[in-house]
């Protein structure tokens, strides 16, 4: 099939074709970037936290009485919580993934050396590893004699004396790339701390954009602050009931405290990502809206052109073009226009990405989104033009003799 009439007819509508190409290009650029933002946020939302998320019930207790021995109070609370039917294990911790309050330390490999990176310090009672269901991939759990108080009263001085730590795989790889981290010494505080174990994942209380989201250290330090979170391991269906009972049990034991945020881990995770979910819905609807508007524009113009060219279509049919030829003609025409738009759009997509990176600290556009976006747009163009093109192919040759 000769393409020269196609080019000739396109050049008769230069302005309209240019507009359509620009529209497709802009749509392509925006949709590629929006898709990449959505992809990035979805990836963040699916990061494994490292804990058994659907079996945990949490409650935060803040004692108003600062003079009391907090360690003893926590032990009493834990003993009481253990008696709740359905609770298999209980631990007191100072922070959890997604909990928001983040105590990070700079980690260096020599005393008072420069920090290679920062990592979150997680502290808790001895049962915590089992309660959270942390997956130890190397080394051993903490020994009972390794536990010391956090000593929050003296500026969290425990960090300077704690003998051992368990780190995440990601942190171990960052600190000791290509080496066995077990037995290595790190300096999160003033004193040396030996790595005795490695867990596969444990996300930090707040996520940032990088792989540093999984840089965590576990310490054998007992929380001795007035503010502590109790984690109860139970079955998914028991969580609601356990939380209600836990509030009663704790309030009954000591009413001189504030109980906050009784919730399951799943709820906490959902709350943490609520904004991201809104943003994803919004971005999705924007991308869909854009594609729809562009498709409508393509279809509108195509059906216009079909109406306008009824006579020439009739003539072509009369001189021997088959219906298929006519259909092909409009499809090719659309392919050329949308294709040109996509080519321009790829350039625009990267330009837009640079602009966004500058202003919003967004990540670079992964290349894979570009061909996928382009292909999707081409396909959309073909779908949009199908109706008008079929109508065109239905124009009878006899039209040529009229008018």
């Amino acid at each position: 099939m000769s393409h020269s009439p196609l080019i000739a007819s396109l050049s008769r509508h230069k302005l309209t074709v240019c507009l359509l190409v620009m529209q497709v290009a802009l749509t392509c650029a925006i949709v590629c970037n929006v898709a990449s933002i959505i992809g990035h946020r979805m990836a963040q939302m699916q990061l494994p936290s490292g804990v058994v998320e659907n079996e945990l019930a949490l409650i935060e207790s803040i004692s108003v009485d600062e003079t009391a021995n907090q360690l003893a109070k926590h032990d009493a609370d834990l003993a009481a919580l253990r008696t709740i039917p359905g609770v298999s294990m209980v631990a007191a911790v100072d922070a959890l993934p997604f909990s928001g309050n983040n105590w990070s330390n700079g980690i260096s490999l020599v005393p008072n050396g420069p920090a290679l990176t920062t990592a979150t310090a997680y502290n808790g009672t001895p049962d915590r590893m089992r309660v959270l269901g942390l997956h130890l991939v190397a080394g051993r759990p903490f020994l009972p004699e390794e536990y010391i108080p956090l000593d929050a009263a003296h500026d969290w001085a425990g960090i300077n004396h704690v003998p051992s730590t368990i780190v995440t795989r990601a942190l171990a790889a960052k600190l000791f790339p290509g080496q066995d981290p077990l037995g290595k010494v790190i300096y999160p505080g003033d004193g040396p701390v030996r790595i005795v174990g490695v867990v596969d994942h444990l996300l930090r209380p707040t996520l940032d954009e990088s792989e540093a989201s999984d840089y965590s250290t576990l310490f054998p330090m007992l929380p001795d602050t007035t503010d502590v979170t109790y984690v109860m391991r139970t079955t998914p269906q028991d969580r609601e009931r356990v939380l209600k009972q836990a509030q009663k049990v704790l309030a009954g034991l000591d009413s001189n405290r504030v109980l906050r945020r009784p919730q399951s881990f799943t709820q906490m995770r959902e709350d943490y990502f609520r904004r991201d979910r809104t943003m994803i819905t919004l971005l999705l609807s924007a991308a869909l809206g854009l594609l729809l508007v562009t498709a409508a524009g393509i279809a509108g113009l195509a059906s216009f052109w079909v109406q306008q060219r009824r006579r020439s279509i009739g003539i072509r049919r009369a001189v021997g073009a088959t219906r298929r030829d006519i259909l092909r003609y409009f499809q090719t025409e659309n392919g050329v226009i949308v294709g040109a738009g996509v080519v321009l759009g790829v350039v625009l997509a990267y330009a837009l990405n640079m602009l966004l990176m500058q202003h919003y600290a967004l990540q670079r556009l992964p290349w894979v989104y570009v061909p996928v976006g382009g292909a999707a747009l081409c396909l959309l163009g073909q779908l949009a033009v199908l109706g008008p093109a079929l109508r065109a192919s239905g124009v009878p040759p006899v039209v040529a003799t009229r008018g």
Partner: protein
Amino acid sequence: MLGYYATTAISSLRRSKALAALMVLVIGLGIGASMTMITIFHVLSGDPLPGRSDQLYAPVIDPRPLARDHNEPAEPDGNFTWPDAMNLLHARRADRQAVMAGGAVPVRPMQSGELPFYETGRYVTADFFSMFNVPFATGSGWRSEDDESHARIVVLNSELNRKLFGTTPSIGRTVRLKNADFRVVGVLDDWRPQPQFYAQLNGRVFGKTDQFFLPLQTAQDLGLDFNGRFSCWDSGGDARTSDHCVWLQVWVQLDSTAKAQAYRQFLASYWRDQQSHGRMPRPANAQLYGLMDWLTRQHAIPDDLRLQLSLSLGFLAVCMLNVVGLLLATFLRRGGEISVRRALGARRWDIFLQLGVESCVIGLAGGLLGLGIACLGLWSVRQRPDGYAQLAQMDASMLFGTFVLALVASVIAGLLPAWRACRIPPALQLKTQ
């Protein structure tokens, strides 16, 4: 003549209903999406303290040691150490000045048996109330003597006051916060400036309100818990009163630009003076930001919202391109009609005007649809969990703005097609038809 053009416009739109509907829909979607975001921006970038904001300034000094690694931000975060804040407070070089920090304390209800609950408020110094024009329902703030004597007094916002005392008068009564008793000296008349400009600014300053205010020195004395960003670059000593931890906010009121200039110089001389004592080693670069300026610099409006605004404007651009294309096609199809009119004596200008009116009619219809979509969009924003959600309301100026935007957009969209169509030569088209 314009009236006649409007009638012909409507009748010609009727002829190609589907296409006209498509154009109206596309303009409506573009206008609706962008007006939703523009309205949110308009509301969020409003003045939190009309009438006073142009006299309020946030001083910024940088007490950090020389940069140790390139990761740390070049600009200071605007928070103060205790000694610096107290020095500026006691220097009294501004018309009014106040030092403040956010706090959260357990409030113990008067009735025994009820669990205490957490409430967020602010530890402030005396000038806070007069400087920010804080409205009192009853009572008043305190004087700087009370600051110095670490008085145990508190000002309640209306919500906490209602929660604790119901409708009974509360002035002079006692509130137990954490482990200390405070005497109520004032109750605010539901004060909720949006955003909470005087706090440490982050993406979540909208929707928050402080429920109590008590003297900063008293809070420090009692060791009441501080709430917010606290950054140190050294250790040792009591971190809160040390000169190596920043966590306090300082605001000053300066009634004239001359005074602001003088205060800037005072800050610079303070910096140099501290340098002579071996502190603040960075090159002296004291800043004084006006309130509105400060809000912009600190990104009070969340980045996600900015991104959404840019996205909606991009969407509008695609919609406009679409409409230009469709208008061009409709106008050019009427080449025959246009050339007849031209042959009968219509000038190019007449054709241009007629087609311009036609695109305005489409623009107006699109604007109407866009208004509906924007209202729907704002409604959906109000369902969001964010603090700014409740502020997302359409006001008169935005209502007017929607129509202006719709008209301007459609006129611009119509310009190119109308210009192209009015260049159709009169006779040629007649011959070819």
